């Protein structure tokens, strides 16, 4: 293991390299492009073994990613913002293929107006797609989360693709110290890709992702997808625990900071939450009892862990890096629809 200065994009590329991904279908978009350029360079110079193909759109890119995963190889891809939205039809479609792969999103605000600034409107639009979704606050966490994501996606109980999100500019282009695990240790954490029966071979004819006409069978397949995504909750705990044993870094599904005696907690995701830690320290100095609840795993929603973290708190300040359309005139404390649902479910608690 060595300690290096890496940008978020550099960390993402290193994670794909350490995971020994076979295939990278790619399409450039700011602020993600550096990831695929780094991988392209390594592949061309033989420093990493893999194949990169540029598709002509993100919609095609996600199709190619899932198709390659469905054939039986380990796949990595990345996009942002407009590209994530362009792929949206396929983001809804491919979890149901039950072919695992990892997509890194470098979050960036969406048009209109067209911009390069970071926010979470793009990634939060994918909450209902069926992808497992992990949010990272540091470059180290990003690298680690991508490795955990492969374990999770390829887990027999799960077998759905995973999105790992890093914030554009704040992480993607900012150098932070990162411990690079060595390849052998990663191989112990991540066994070789096992298609688990989902593959194309001449001797085993299979028709994948076929049309299903009829309400009951359709509902069965959709509900099974939901059940499998929910299995990512225990599977995440196990993967993260084993990661901690091998690499010494803990990444629970929900991070809490100075929450134990907090009266008010901030609820934030991603690297913007690191600013909250700074604010909390200063507010604590002036006597306010505040803390931070930061979900890393956003889908499946870690409801039990969040209920535990929020229990007994007087107030929750949900600070979204996203506008929900109608929140144009909203005050600083925006309503996060997931937290709202959680509080409904809690009832009087």
């Amino acid at each position, binding site marked *: 293991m060595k300690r290096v200065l890496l940008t978020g994009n550099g960390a993402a590329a290193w994670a794909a390299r350490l995971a020994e991904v076979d295939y990278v279908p790619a399409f450039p978009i700011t602020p993600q492009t550096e990831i695929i350029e780094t991988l392209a360079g390594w592949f061309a110079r033989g420093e990493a073994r893999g194949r990169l193909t540029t598709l002509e759109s993100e919609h*095609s890119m996600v199709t190619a990613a899932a198709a390659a995963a469905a*054939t039986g*190889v380990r796949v990595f891809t990345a996009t942002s913002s407009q590209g994530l939205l362009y792929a949206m039809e396929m983001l809804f479609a491919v979890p149901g293929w039950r072919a695992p792969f990892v997509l890194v999103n470098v979050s960036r605000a969406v048009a209109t107006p067209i911009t390069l600034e970071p926010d979470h409107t793009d990634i939060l639009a994918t909450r209902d797609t069926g992808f497992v979704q992990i949010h990272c606050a540091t470059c180290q966490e990003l690298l680690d989360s991508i490795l955990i994501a492969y374990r999770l996606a390829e887990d027999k109980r799960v077998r759905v693709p995973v999105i790992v999100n890093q914030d554009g500019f704040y992480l993607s282009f900012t150098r932070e110290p990162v411990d690079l695990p060595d390849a052998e240790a990663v191989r112990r954490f991540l066994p070789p890709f096992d298609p688990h029966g989902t593959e194309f*071979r001449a001797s085993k004819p299979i028709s*994948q992702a076929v*049309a299903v006409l009829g309400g009951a069978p359709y509902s069965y397949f959709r509900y099974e997808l939901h059940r499998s995504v929910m299995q990512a909750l225990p599977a995440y705990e196990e993967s993260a625990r084993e990661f901690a044993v091998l690499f010494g870094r803990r990444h629970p599904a929900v991070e809490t900071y100075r929450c134990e005696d907090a009266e008010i907690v901030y609820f934030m995701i991603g690297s913007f939450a690191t600013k909250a830690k700074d604010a909390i320290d200063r507010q604590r100095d002036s006597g306010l009892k505040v803390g931070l609840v930061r979900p890393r795993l956003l889908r499946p929603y870690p409801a039990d862990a969040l209920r535990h973290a929020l229990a007994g708190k007087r107030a929750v300040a949900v600070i979204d890096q996203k506008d929900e359309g109608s929140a144009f005139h909203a005050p600083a404390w925006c309503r996060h629809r997931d937290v709202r649902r959680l509080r409904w479910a809690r009832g009087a608690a």
Partner: protein
Amino acid sequence: MCAGCGGLEALHEICDVLGRKTVFVNAAGCMTLLASYPFTPFRGSWLYTSMASAPAGAQGVRDALDILRAKGSITAEEDLATIVLTGDGAAYGMGLSATSAAIERNLDFLYICYDNEGYGNTGQQYSGATPHGALTPTSPGAHGYEGEKKDLFAIWVAHRPAYAATVIGAEPLDLARKIERAAKLKGPRLILALAPCPTGWDYDPRHSVTIGRLAVRSGVWPLKEYVDGKVTHTRIPRPRAPVEEYLATQGRFAHLFAPERNESLIAQIQARVDDYWKNVA
């Protein structure tokens, strides 16, 4: 598929030649319903993708198979020919970008388009492949469709693919020869099959082959192939049957003949066909 489907007839003949070591990557269209849980008619494999991105799905499958071969994880016996199966709706329109890019990447795939000259699966609304004057639910006026049929064969040829051919199920020997030839080549290969459609073109299903033969004999559907930079016609109809013999068989052109003959529209269609064959040796 509907009874008498010209597209299915072509696919039947194509599969007889290709065999079962295949994976069909499908774009949304009539034939999406060929594999409908739990029934598939294929002896090989199948992957449904979306309307716009079947060629990208084929790219992913082909790249993954190549990776597995290079790693030694699979043998040549386990490898599969990657085939896109698409209707004209995706091929001439929504999927054209993905198709063009796949050819340009020199993807090794066979691309089969069953062309029933409209968006068949939704009720034969007009598409980029609809011929001039055809009555469709979205071109219901006295003139029928005002546009012209896009020349997909020429678009493919402009990309200089490994192979391109037009075929029709009504001419099985010509079709079989072309599939055998295409199957031996590597790279992007187009098989464009005119698919007479009883439901969409409005005729008794038993006439699919008769109408297919008339499409060829009237010169409306040229049988040709492109390979090594050259286009060769594999059938030059001599004499060419008048185009109205072909048009009169189908309800979608009935307005050309009743309540009275639309001489100018028939002449327009004939002139365009004549113009095409003028430039053919």
